[in-house]
């Protein structure tokens, strides 16, 4: 899956198959649902109408559980796979818990994909750094897949990941597989060591400080809690990565996904439409304002 042939172009547009209204969920079947961590699960979905799924890394869908409601969830699967949609979710609210309770063969409504994308075109010939915290690795995974599919276009590729404890390391088997490759640098750290963990302990910013990339020739992508991303940006910048080469994925109350409902407004942006992926320098001022 991860090594799929690089056949797909980058899609910036969001295409709803056969339905003029962005308000109507499209039914998908749950073909597989599995536990990732104690509170986190993934599911793969196929569209009941058989139309291909087109999304670009960084985009999200509104997932609907019949009779319960909708939540915005980033796509965590492979963008080159047009038949299956993969989402990774942490069960923290009513709808995400209802999603978790679904069984294979049941249906989920999908609206989307919505939002902006992690741009890779600007990174050709440069080092790529992916900095993730906790479940923030899920929205980054599609762009990591994409970078791997076109691995020759980039120089160093570093994945820097921080989790709360060793038990909270998302996609651990995949991280190990990537680490085993000779062309990817994977570093993992935990906030708090448990059991027989002998790896790094400390914030993910430590990994940024010593990561093997050429700051002047790097594009960085970060996703995690807002405060973590701010520190990551700081560390990247201190090493010399310019602000206009750093991208982050913001989270606000996305409800309609199409810029109508107003809930995700943040300064001049609708996070659902103008985000969730932003270039840091375009939102640096907004990030400084409390309760914006």
């Amino acid at each position: 899956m991860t090594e799929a042939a690089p056949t797909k172009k980058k899609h910036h547009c969001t295409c709803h198959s056969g339905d003029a209204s962005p308000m109507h969920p499209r039914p998908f079947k749950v073909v597989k649902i599995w536990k990732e961590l104690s509170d986190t699960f993934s599911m793969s979905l196929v569209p009941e109408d058989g139309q291909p799924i087109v999304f670009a890394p960084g985009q999200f869908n509104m997932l609907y559980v019949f009779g319960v409601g909708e939540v915005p969830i980033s796509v965590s699967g492979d963008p080159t796979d047009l038949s299956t949609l993969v989402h990774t979710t942490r069960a923290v609210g009513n709808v995400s818990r209802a999603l978790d309770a679904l069984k294979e063969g049941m249906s989920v409504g999908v609206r989307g994909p919505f939002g902006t994308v992690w741009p890779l075109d600007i990174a050709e010939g440069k080092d790529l750094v992916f900095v993730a915290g906790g479940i923030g690795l899920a929205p980054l995974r599609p762009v990591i897949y994409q970078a791997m599919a076109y691995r020759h276009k980039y120089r160093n590729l570093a994945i820097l990941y921080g989790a709360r404890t060793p038990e909270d390391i998302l996609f651990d088997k995949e991280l190990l597989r990537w680490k085993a490759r000779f062309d990817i640098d994977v570093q993992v750290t935990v906030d708090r060591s448990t059991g027989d963990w002998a790896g790094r302990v400390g914030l993910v910013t430590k990994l940024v400080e010593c990561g093997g990339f050429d700051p002047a020739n790097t594009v960085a992508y970060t996703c995690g809690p807002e405060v973590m991303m701010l520190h990551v940006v700081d560390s990247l910048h201190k090493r010399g990565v310019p602000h206009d080469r750093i991208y982050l994925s913001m989270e606000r109350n996305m409800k309609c996904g199409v810029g109508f409902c107003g809930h995700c407004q943040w300064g001049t942006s609708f996070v659902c439409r103008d985000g969730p992926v932003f270039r840091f320098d375009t939102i640096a001022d907004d990030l400084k304002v409390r309760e914006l």
Partner: protein
Amino acid sequence: MTHAHGSTGSSHAKAPAGAKGSPIAIGTKVVMDEAGLASLITLLTKVGYQPIGPKARDGAIVYEEIESLSDLPVGFADEQEGGKYRLVAGTKGSFFEYLVGPTSWKRYLFPPTHKLWGAEQKGNGFEIDKAKADVPAYAFIGVRSCELNAMKIQDKVFGFGREDNNGAGIFSDPNYVARRSKALIIAVNCSRAGKTCFCTSMGGDPHVKEDQGFDLALTEFAPQQTHEFMVEVGSERGRLILELLPYRAVTSHDTDRAASQARKARSEMGRKMPPDIKDVLKRNLDHKRWDDVASRCLSCANCTMVCPTCFCSTVQDSTNLTGEKTERTRSWDSCFSVDFSYIHGGAIRPETKSRYRQWMTHKLSNWHEQYGSSGCVGCGRCITWCPVGIDITEEARVIKTTGK
């Protein structure tokens, strides 16, 4: 309800009473009397429109379904101030001397609550009912110039008639677009301005401009010996309708009278917005005035409900008792409610201070980046209907004079 456009059939045609020989075109002005206005309302109903117009109800002028001329409020004016609205006696026999009240046309183009879709459980899955609801063809009677501007602003929000790049990105709201494209607009020029009016400082004017997007525009000549209305044609649809009505040719006396009405209304504007408020607010997100306004603001959301451009909404899913059928409705929401910005763990804007700031900076500043204009048209509703009389122009003035 049938589609009204193009159905102004000749079977309804009566010979116009006057002005024969000078064909009417877009931009033409004629004059009709009360009987003409009465025929207009009757004609609109006949050709399939649902007329919506002003009515006096519960001590205010509201926009509701009307059937005939006799539904219009007669002889009313209003007094408005921060936190105050009173109907008072106006010129005897006049229809449109009142100014904007608590309702706006937004409630007909973007209803306070409406069903988005229904769904039914089918085996392990469900089926979405995508049947489109029949959208009414409204004829709005009495749309003010500021309200035309408000519609144009909401057009951008909901992606109707996107002739520029500002607006709702690639999406359109099908419900809004359907309602908006059917609606016929009969504008009315303001003969006066109220104490909370400030349309002229938002780039508007109490009298409509020819390209403002109306089908017909009325200027009321309040009853003296006669009770007449100058009618300006603003669209082909408006022209077709007017051709079926009795009217007389316009004279220079009529146009002079209309012009002096406009001058009077302009000179009466009760409030004023600082012209550079967009940039002033951007520089003053940390101004202490936000604390001050928060100590008065009740976070009641009245300002957002009466605002003709506020567009925020929420959805609610409700399921029947057996859990087999569900439907999603969309309702107006407000950035003044705490849970508006809620994401897992808490609200982004828990304090009234930040919610008021969000509303005001969005309306007057961020709107420019989002849609290419201010989100405020200067109708003054938010001032009049604020229970504690918070005045957006006064807040703007203080922040400008004491801020960065």
